[in-house]
């Protein structure tokens, strides 16, 4: 069964990097959908079944935390796993994210392993086979 990941970031480069990390991470089939900001992310969530969301914070029109706040108001999206990937990782920002039920906050710059681990921890993406990769430094914040 295919899993769907929504990647929300205004940088095309970052969306491509995340998509590539997911592709090479040894998960089963994953369908990736892109959005350039929170508003577009919400539109996609209203019509697509998404299993996990990876989002930045600062984006034009609607940022990641505003999108997350809107998601939590909707019964169908209240428990959807969300991973925030952002360079702005001040304590208030982390608290805001945690208060909105963000399960994982990955600081940019990141190692590919941090994205892989966050997705595995989100519980939606199961690894397809034995994972023989060595653990690298993890620079992500668990709540």
């Amino acid at each position: 069964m295919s899993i769907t990941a929504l990647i929300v970031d205004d940088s095309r480069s970052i969306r491509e990097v995340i998509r590539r990390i997911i592709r090479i991470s040894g998960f089963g089939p994953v369908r990736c959908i892109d959005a350039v900001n929170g508003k577009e992310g919400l539109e996609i969530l209203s019509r697509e079944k998404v299993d996990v969301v990876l989002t930045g914070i600062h984006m034009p029109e609607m940022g990641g935390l505003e999108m997350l706040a809107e998601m939590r108001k909707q019964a169908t999206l209240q428990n959807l796993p969300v991973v925030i990937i952002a360079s702005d990782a001040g304590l208030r920002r982390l608290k805001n994210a945690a208060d909105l039920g963000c399960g994982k906050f990955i600081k940019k710059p990141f190692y590919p392993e941090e994205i892989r681990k966050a997705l595995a921890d989100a519980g939606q993406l199961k690894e397809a086979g034995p994972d023989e990769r060595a653990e690298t430094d993890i620079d992500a914040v668990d709540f």
Partner: protein
Amino acid sequence: MKELRQTLMQSIFEVFEKMFYIFLEPSDVHFLGFDVEADIDFKGALKGSVSLQLSHNMIKHMVSHLLNVPLDQVTDEHIQDCAKEATNMICGNFITRADRQNAYDFSSPRFFTTLKGPWPYSPDGKSESIRLNFDSDSGRASVILSLSN
């Protein structure tokens, strides 16, 4: 300012090494002839901007390493997006290190192919600035932190 300089240096190294696999060497030489520049404003307990100036060779290598594309397939769109994202990461990482307690607002990164002028520049005449220069096998880079009073 000395402490901020060290903090900025750490952020730059972390971004270039983790995201672009490029190992920079600090340089005392103020290089001229950069080809592209991106900048971003931040506002909080500290207020100012971070500018990243890059040689054409450097930004092409950054794109190539980040996106795993051959150098001859790097496009102008890649260059613009990558320069802006690198600036965003350096600024966010720097602010998180320099002042983790407070919340900050950030502008959208801007991209230029015409540099803003010789350093030191002070658009409002009230800024203090730090310039860090780097050389590498992949090209040259400078980062300018401007703090408004």
